[in-house]
């Protein structure tokens, strides 16, 4: 496995997406944008897994009896990605439910304003 920057561009894209997601999560004050950052970050890891399992000219790993000499891609990362998608969806769903609750209580989605509203009456 030789890391060649031009042919392995998907890894570079994955790392750039990862950093964009992390940056968004840390710097944005809007809760929805934080969750978007979280999703970008998770998706970048999924891209990373998929590129890791791919083989040049590989086919979907379904064995047909009698056909030999076919190159298959690695199915394990794909199984992992499916599971990770399920996990990411449930986390996102729960986060959005919390955001709805927060919006009903505070009437805003800005993390700073929520903190002010919460600590004000103390």
């Amino acid at each position: 496995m030789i890391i060649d920057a031009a042919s392995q561009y998907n890894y570079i894209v994955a790392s750039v997406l990862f950093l964009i997601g992390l940056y968004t999560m840390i710097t944005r004050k809007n809760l929805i944008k934080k969750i978007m950052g979280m999703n970008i970050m998770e998706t970048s890891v999924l891209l990373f897994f998929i590129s890791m399992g791919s083989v040049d000219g590989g086919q979907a790993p379904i064995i047909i009896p009698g056909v030999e000499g076919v190159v298959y891609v690695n199915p394990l990362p794909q199984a992992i990605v499916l599971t990770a998608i399920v996990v990411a969806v449930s986390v996102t769903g729960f986060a959005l439910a919390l955001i709805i609750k927060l919006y009903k209580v505070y009437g805003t989605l800005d993390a700073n304003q929520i903190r002010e509203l919460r600590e004000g009456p103390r």
Partner: protein
Amino acid sequence: MRGWEPPWGIEILIDYLSAYMIVVITGIGLLILIYTTKYSEKMIEEKNIGLFYALILLLITGLSGMVVTGDLFNLFVFLEVASLASYALVSIAGKKGDTGRFEASFRYLYMGSIASTFVLLGIGLGYMVTGTLNMADFALKLEAANTLYPRLVLASLGFFIVGFSLKSALFPLHLWLPDAYTHAPAPVSALSSALTIKVMAYVIYRLFYSIYGVKLLSATTIMPLLQLLAGFAIIIGSLYAIAQDDVVRILAYSSISQIGYVILGATLLSNSGLAGGLLHILHHAVMKSTMLLAVGAVMYKTGKRNIRDYQGLGRKMPFTMAAFSIAALSMVGIPPLTGFVSKWFLLLGTVETKSYAFTFVILASSLLNAIYYLRLINYIHFKGDAKGDVKIDEAPLAMLVPIVILGLGAIVLGLFAGIPLKLIEKAIISFGI
């Protein structure tokens, strides 16, 4: 599982270390569940009680799964099961319209999800260089991988450590913890402090000694770095705890300080240090769950938890407060209580490895612990009678029994520390230091 042999299929593996952890998880989990039967009647909205139990059981399942699994990706799945259950548990409780819990839960969620993504990336990088997810197989192939791709191996280790440090609230990444505990109901903060963050610390032990191995670790600067962070956690957690007036927050910051001990034990690279760190997982679980459950019992009776409201409670709730005080003294490290034994082994570890700065840190932290725990005990027992004519009596039996059992546990496990230690020693032999 599913008819596949271990290196390909998912393996469930129980060795001495996981056996020890699973006893801690299920034992303390059972006591907390007994406590919850009465607590939930008054403190949890009625329509949520069923969900509350379901989430607690899900949390315990996730934690047990993390401990027994022999597969890295399976570890991630159980990690997410446990984490999602704890996020939800923080937000579920409260009858009196406490809205801060949603924000606390959200902050826990978004910091936790960063950690999960880091762990997943760590697994990915590890899989890339070794081509396997089975922990034993991974450890075998790591040596060859390390000569070929040393940077990738280190990167995967780094992502794992950051992820699990965040989940176990190690010092600079502890920001989610105090708010989550303040707004969570007592059984949840007890479960989280006693079990969740401990299991995350256990994974760090597992990664260090069963997977990456001592040889690889001592060739890097990871150990000194984590030692430093653990030292900061121990001191700064205690300093923050002194400054608090809310009893739950005192205990929350104290948990941050105590997780420092567990991580310090993992990083000292000496047998005594490891024994101390692993023993502290059990001992701190017993002590801190006693205290958090006792605080929950006071909340149940009076609805208050400021340190001033504890004045004279020693006479009103004698058994609860006796258990609380024993656990508090044990936390300070007074022999023969539990806290003393694990701190003693950690001290031995620091002396053996000649890291005297950490000997000082542990001793100084015991003094700092004494400041805030003796302050609490002073309010409870020696400040005169309770203010006002509020009629307060002992907690109901279903809540009292777990508290008293755990409080007695703080004495018994201190006197008979040899019993868990036998198991731990067998586990440490397999670490190969």
